[in-house]
């Protein structure tokens, strides 16, 4: 082996090892995040975190019950807006539309997907908060729902298009009308994929903070109904983390652990649903 070749082999081995180090560093970040959250959050979580309201400034104790309920309500409102639009829009794109309309809708969805979440917040503010003149759960739900639309739409469409042609043709040959084919054959065949898409969209907006800052705002108390400002977990983490109180920091860690746990579990479940065998065999 000439020295030149030996040098080349050394460079090759060294650089390839470095790429391995890069991958290791990137993946280990996830475990650092989880480790810190479990370490700091785990010791701060207790029963009153889930059941009590925040205490006044300066008093220790209390919990984030109102933020947990607030987040649930925001996500419910978001899903009621985002899922139907994404799902039905995707059915139109995959089953009915011509290529020109489909191109425009896909383009708009991709554009919407790329809009920074803080800008979505400004939009929801000018569209929902300004006319009603106050912050509300509805406005926050609108902002989050808007963010769910493009994710649901694009992935649902992809899964619908993956349903083999033979299935459609079989249903048509039996005399089923187009929408009957869609409802009884195509959507059931793609339901795993669609469910995954919806869950991932849900998990994505569950942790969004920026669009809630000036739509749902925040609240130290319960927020009855849909028309008042409400607390939410992500916003609470933000306000508690940047505040100067030791006890608030403790609760921010606890809230972070709860939020991240929820999001990771939804992500893993969504992927497990998909990996368990796509109900649609490739034609």
């Amino acid at each position: 082996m000439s020295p030149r070749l030996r040098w080349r082999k050394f460079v090759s081995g060294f650089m390839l090892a470095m790429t391995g180090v890069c991958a290791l560093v990137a993946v280990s970040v996830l475990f650092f995040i989880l480790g810190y959250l479990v370490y700091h959050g785990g010791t701060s979580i207790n029963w009153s975190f889930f059941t009590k309201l925040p205490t006044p400034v300066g008093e220790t104790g209390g919990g984030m019950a109102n933020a947990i309920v607030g987040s649930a309500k925001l996500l419910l409102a978001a899903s009621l807006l985002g899922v139907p639009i994404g799902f039905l829009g995707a059915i139109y794109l995959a089953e009915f539309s011509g290529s020109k309309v489909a191109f425009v809708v896909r383009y708009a969805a991709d554009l919407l997907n790329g809009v920074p979440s803080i800008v979505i917040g400004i939009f929801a503010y000018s569209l929902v908060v300004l006319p009603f003149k106050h912050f509300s759960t509805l406005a926050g739900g609108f902002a989050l729902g808007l963010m769910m639309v493009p994710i649901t739409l694009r992935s649902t469409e992809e899964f619908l298009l993956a349903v083999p042609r033979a299935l459609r043709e079989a249903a048509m040959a039996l005399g089923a009308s187009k929408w009957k084919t869609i409802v009884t054959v195509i959507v059931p065949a793609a339901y795993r994929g669609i469910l995954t898409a919806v869950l991932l969209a849900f998990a994505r907006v569950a942790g969004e903070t920026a669009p809630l800052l000036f739509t749902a705002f925040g609240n130290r108390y319960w927020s009855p109904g849909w028309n008042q400002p409400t607390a939410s977990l992500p916003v609470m983490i933000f306000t508690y983390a940047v505040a100067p109180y030791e006890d608030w920091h403790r609760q921010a860690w606890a809230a972070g652990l709860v939020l991240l746990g929820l999001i990771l579990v939804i992500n893993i479940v969504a992927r497990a649903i998909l990996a368990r065998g796509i109900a649609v065999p490739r034609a």
Partner: protein
Amino acid sequence: MAATTSVPSASPISGSRSFVRRLREGDEVARLITFLFAVSVVLVTLLLIFALWQGSALARHKFGLQFFFTRVWDPIAEQFGALPFIYGTLMTATVSLVIAVPLGIGAAIFLAELAPARLSDALEFFIDLLAAVPSVIYGLLGVFIVVPLMRDYVQPGLKATLGFLPLFSGPAYGVGFLTAGIVLAIMVIPYIISVSREVLMSVPRDQREAALGLGSTRWESTWKVVVPFARTGIMGSIFLALARALGETMAVTMVIGNTPTISASLFSPGYTIAAVIANEFTEATGDLYLQALVELGLVLFLLTFLLNGLARLLIVITSQRGSGTAHA
């Protein structure tokens, strides 16, 4: 696939009859309803652009192009200039890319070229989970872990070794451009890895085999043949990451220090477009103040819009080229 193509060779008469039949069977109704939902996506997007444009009209007229070159941000005197925020946004995004690009591409090379398929898929699963971690969680760790680490160890260390550069001078606060850039880098690395890995995996096998057959080492075939082949797509992933970094709000807001300064030092506290909107939007008193913030939102929107468009274009070009030659 249009609905009409499912009725083969229909004469004009049977065509109109089949329209009535389709209506009775519900096809036209379903088509109309789903159409309305699909079109609402387009309408909402247009409305968003209109709202940003309309909502910043006052500020746009008052300041004009001067808005982008003014350093003063004084809500009391109603003087608004975007320069410190634009500077901060670009500065943090640059720092993040300097860190994230080599790390991300290195990891993508490992996943696409070296790792066995099962390991690669498993690591990709963790990378996907990492991409799902919300911004505010990164901010939380940034405030309590990264900032003290920067203040007590990294910044004094950099100052001792590279302090002669203006980039690494000034007092070590912990918060600032460098810290925000590092947190941003951690956040965008998953995007670079996922997209680059896919692009690298779409490079046809013959390219690698040809390079190895000519006697190149494994690294030479990767670095001189496979990576250049996927270059456009990798650029796409970088633009995608850049767009994310520019629009990222919470994590940056929590670690950048929130002071509108323009300083060559990376240790200096700063401010970004997204962070100033997040902090001041609810406190903005007076129309002009609010509209200046909306105009900042408009700027951010246009920036990310351009970058995302460019990124998509580059990724599509590469993956088409890859599959095109694979079939040839």
